[in-house]
């Protein structure tokens, strides 16, 4: 593998905390991180364009030998991958963050066990009110709950960390959405593997 001097990770804001933590823990100093707003997920058609802008700026800076995308497909319908392929940028494996935290096989099994599973990660638990309740206007229009969640049966909290407070918050989120609560500890899953693969060794 080519060892790059400096690598830029252009990540979703929903992964910023986890990526920064992994970089600090492993002293992967060759990584710089820049983020796009996590709330772009409510308008995925904007993700590819914003990513293109970030890539252009990074390439023009001349600072980076390699650029990674800390994203799944995230509802872009393959548009993001087409851009990244053309730009020579590698992205995380999987369609979305639930999948690469849980890793593909366990994730597929959870969906097979209950297709009506709504997933939360640490980030989504922390920002549940902002991204889910306010983002979907359920604070103003709680009567829309069945429109959004009528087909879901359970909420699965994919925990990156063991944190009692987050566990309680996730359970409250499930109650609020009228879903059965489940929790699965995943750690950082394929996110850690991906970064390690591209770290070129520590330091």
């Amino acid at each position, binding site marked *: 593998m080519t060892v790059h001097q400096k690598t830029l990770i252009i990540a979703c804001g929903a992964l910023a905390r986890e990526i920064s933590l992994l970089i600090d823990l492993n002293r992967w100093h060759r990584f710089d991180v820049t983020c796009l707003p996590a709330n772009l997920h409510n308008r995925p058609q904007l993700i590819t364009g914003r990513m293109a802008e970030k890539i252009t700026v990074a390439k023009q800076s001349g600072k980076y030998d390699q650029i990674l995308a800390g994203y799944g497909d995230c509802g872009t319908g393959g548009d993001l991958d087409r851009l990244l392929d053309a730009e020579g940028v590698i992205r995380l494996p999987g369609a979305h963050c639930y999948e690469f935290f849980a890793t593909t096989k366990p994730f597929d099994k959870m969906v097979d066990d209950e297709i009506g599973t709504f997933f939360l990660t640490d980030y989504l638990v922390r920002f549940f009110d902002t991204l889910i309740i306010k983002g979907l206007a359920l604070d103003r229009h709680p*009567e829309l709950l069945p429109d959004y969640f009528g*087909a879901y049966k359970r909420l699965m909290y994919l925990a990156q960390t063991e944190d009692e407070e987050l566990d309680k918050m996730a359970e409250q989120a499930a109650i609020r959405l009228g879903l059965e609560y489940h929790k699965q500890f995943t750690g950082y899953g394929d996110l850690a593997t991906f970064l390690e693969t591209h770290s070129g060794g520590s330091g």
Partner: protein
Amino acid sequence: MTNTENDQVDIVLSDLNNDDLVEQMFDDLYDGLADAITEGTEILLNRGWLPYEVLTKSLVAGMAIVGKDFRDGILFVPEVLMAANAMKAGMAILRPLLAETGAPKMGKVVIGTVKGDIHDIGKNLVTMMMEGAGFEVIDIGINNPVENYLEAIEEHQPDIIGMSALLTTTMPYMKVVIDTLIEKGIRNDYIVLVGGAPLNETFAESVGADAYCRDAAMAVDMAKELMAHRQGSAAAQMAAS
């Protein structure tokens, strides 16, 4: 009765003339006021409007404004859902009356979300807008394997098959359904429309659909256009034979 947000002046819907009432219903639909839509619908019917007139001139025309503003990024999904629920309230009154009064039939649609996918907001909006436009819609729900589509096709003999998916991982299943129709030699018997957030025209073409529908309003336009084309072709064939 409806309450305008700015000046808090009560508007008595029954005091409005027909034109003003329809204009007010556009506003009420835009604001997602289901009770006001119910009241407005009943008033127009009591004034002797045909159910089909009420539907097209107030509800469908009002939803067209909502659809346009959604497309232009002025309204977002929650507002569209509120408007759709308001329209649903009007439709609940009109639906039985439309059947009785022989409203024009545009065609029959079988619609469902594909296997592996339980997202149905878009599908439900399309269903309602299609009904509003005079299509008979058979909604087969969510997470449909190809067998469900085939059963519904056999049972209902639709003109149009609509498939919806929200996930990048489930949208390829649309090709499975279309390929199965091809294998059975019945693909060209139906118009196939596809839609869902991660889709685009290129994808629709690659799986062999007739059209990609970016939103519910466009699905209706596309369905009407393709039905007209189909009927035109059939008429032309009959004339030639």
